[in-house]
């Protein structure tokens, strides 16, 4: 079945880059989440300033068969504002932690966006016609002199310049004491979950004034707290199943039919520690930063600090595959702990499915120095690519990069000590149906496509 699959078989080309050019990064422009919608036509980003920017893909130009449509700005809006919690004397950050699209049901598009405390449902709709020919008003809005009205006419819709409006339709607030790290829409498309450090809540999209608490790992005595929730996701097909990952490297699968409060997991996925790799930082680097189901729902992928692991839902005691993202960092853990990089939360994503590739077979995740990595589960090959403005020409094939861990550095290799740890790629997304990927550096969004012949 394989066809065009394969991290190395695909030749990735630079397509576009969005964002400011200067090196001086404005804090508010730091990209905090990236997500394609279900058709791939829309690409949303959220930033630290609480804004959402949506890009739309141009319709494919049949004559230009060598490239897919470009993404241009479609809508920009302020999703969340900074807030101040007067009761606790705390500022609530407006940074957008996650965006999740709803599947399209009518002409409008809907997405959920969340900051640390509040989730919002946004409706994005187009207006490209307006009524003209009112009887009592002129076109500019002034009222006509009634004595000049001698005939009646019916207003008609005439085309106008496209206007895209975003309006908040629901606000889901006051349900999270701790910081929200995940939202996930259920396959029933009516409910969704939101997870913070200690609790997971279930919402109905229509109901904002209450939610079910389905997971609560807060101990009675906070001093006994040793583990927090780091990510959660609904199963793509089974609407009563979800998983959540923890800071201790475990994943729990829960079935909501078993109990109202899912305190007892149905399955616990945990890999025993490798004693030869034990260090003071073992627990910290085992903390899972992202979990994503495969399209079929048979597998799930987790990201911890140094690796990506693929789990078979039928096997709890160890992952079926493990891919090392940047193993050369293992000997630098103390420095990375000291500068807090060890706490960076990298996300991961699966390839999209098209007619040729029907399975989740490639995984993509970010690293430092604006590098990102892809792993092909079938061929077992992997590649390191760089998101940089130096490869700026469209249809320029990206050159694979290599990091020299130790010993003599070959030409074109980069030594570990020259890596820029401020240039981190935490967020990546893969078009659901085509080989188009969106890669976010600190404040720029890169779009790459595979080379079409």
């Amino acid at each position: 079945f394989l066809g065009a699959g394969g991290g190395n078989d695909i030749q990735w080309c630079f397509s576009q880059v969005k964002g400011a050019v200067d090196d001086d990064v404005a804090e508010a422009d730091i990209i905090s989440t990236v997500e394609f919608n279900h058709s791939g036509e829309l690409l949303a980003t959220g930033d630290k300033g609480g804004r959402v920017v949506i890009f739309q893909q141009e319709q494919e130009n049949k004559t230009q068969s060598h490239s897919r449509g470009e993404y241009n700005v479609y809508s920009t809006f302020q999703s969340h504002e900074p807030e101040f919690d007067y009761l606790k004397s705390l500022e609530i950050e407006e940074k957008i932690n996650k965006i999740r699209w709803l599947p399209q049901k009518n002409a409008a598009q809907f997405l959920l966006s969340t900051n640390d405390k509040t989730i919002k449902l946004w409706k994005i709709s187009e207006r490209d016609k307006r009524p003209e020919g009112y009887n009592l008003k002129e076109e500019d809005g002034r009222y006509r002199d009634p004595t000049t009205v001698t005939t009646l006419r019916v207003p008609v819709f005439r085309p106008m310049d496209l206007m895209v409006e975003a309006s908040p339709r629901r606000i889901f607030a006051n349900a999270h004491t701790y910081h929200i790290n995940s939202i996930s829409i259920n396959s029933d498309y009516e409910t969704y979950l939101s997870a913070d450090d200690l609790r997971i809540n279930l919402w109905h999209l229509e109901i904002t004034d209450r939610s079910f608490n389905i997971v609560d790992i807060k101990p009675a005595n906070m001093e006994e707290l040793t583990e927090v929730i780091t990510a959660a996701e609904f199963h793509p097909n089974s609407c009563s199943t979800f998983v959540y990952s923890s800071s201790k490297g475990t994943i729990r699968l829960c079935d909501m039919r078993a109990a109202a409060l899912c305190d007892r997991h149905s399955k616990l996925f945990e890999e025993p520690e490798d004693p030869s790799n034990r260090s003071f930082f073992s627990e910290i680097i085992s903390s899972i930063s992202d979990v994503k189901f495969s399209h079929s729902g048979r597998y799930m992928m987790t990201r911890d600090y140094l690796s990506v692991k693929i789990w078979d839902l039928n096997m709890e005691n160890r992952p079926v595959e493990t891919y090392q993202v940047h193993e050369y960092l293992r000997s630098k853990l103390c420095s990375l702990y000291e500068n807090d990089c060890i706490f960076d939360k990298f996300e991961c994503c699966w390839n999209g499915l098209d007619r040729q590739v029907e399975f989740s077979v490639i995984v993509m995740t970010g690293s430092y120095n604006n590098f990102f990595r892809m792993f092909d589960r079938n061929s077992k090959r992997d590649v390191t690519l760089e998101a940089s403005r130096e490869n700026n020409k469209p249809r320029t094939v990206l050159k694979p990069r290599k990091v020299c861990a130790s010993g003599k550095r070959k030409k074109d290799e980069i030594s570990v000590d020259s890596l820029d740890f401020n240039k981190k790629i935490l967020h990546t997304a893969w078009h659901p149906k085509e080989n188009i990927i969106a890669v976010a550096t600190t404040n720029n969004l890169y779009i790459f496509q595979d080379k079409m012949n």
Partner: protein
Amino acid sequence: MLGRGLKRKLSDYEENMAGLSSAFDSSRSLPYPLKRQLVLNMCLTKLQTYKMLVEPNLHRSVLIANTVRQIQEEMRQESNQQPVNICPGIAPSSHSYTGIESSGISLQLPSGISQQESNCCDLRSVEDPIENSLLIVSDDDMSSAISSILKDLDFVEDISPPTCLVPTGDDQPKFPENTVLKLEDDRQDSKGAECVFGSFEISNSTSYLKDLAIDDIFEDIDTSMYDSDFCCPPLMPPRSPSLATEEPLKTFPSCNSSSANNIQICRTDLSELDHIMEILVGS
């Protein structure tokens, strides 16, 4: 608390920490106890920094606290095997962070390191400047540091529990009142290294929390009853009620409220005062 009115050269400190951690990473000859101590110091420093933030990051705090506990457990097991008690509490001097500069230098001297490794406890002599460098702390102080941070997170964060629909099934929903009750029971039961009120711990002068003035520990408690007007010096005998009625408003000589002895004696006088009041009021 660390940092209160205390200027330290942050850039120097950070440079030295970076130097130490890259020494940790690159040096194979660094002995294990020293590496462990270095990691422990970094953890405690981070926890201390988070404590000063309005809203510490719960995820990071938990990870760091676990690392500290892990090291603590390791050291405890080692000390159980060894006759000598490893690393009793030591007062970091106000120059403890500049002291790390000297430890940065000492790391380049292998002879100095091996001496530190084997004579961990002998380095407590004040004349040796190196011993101040590595913030050697006791079990209790580490536990109390972790406990107080996690406890503070609870107090700051979770004033109101999340709204939830009570399920109709057999499951017991978690009511906030139950959790509060359980918390109080646990506090009475908890003993040993896991001190509950970390910031209330009256340590001896050689503790990690040395910079805390006793007055600050009792900030939350209304100590007005123990103030100068009511306390008496230890040598004064208890007054008989009859004398007290003649001079009810006599101001007692002031005493230092931080003296535990005086507090005891003030309590005695306080009950006498109650007795006096009863007589005055005629109840």
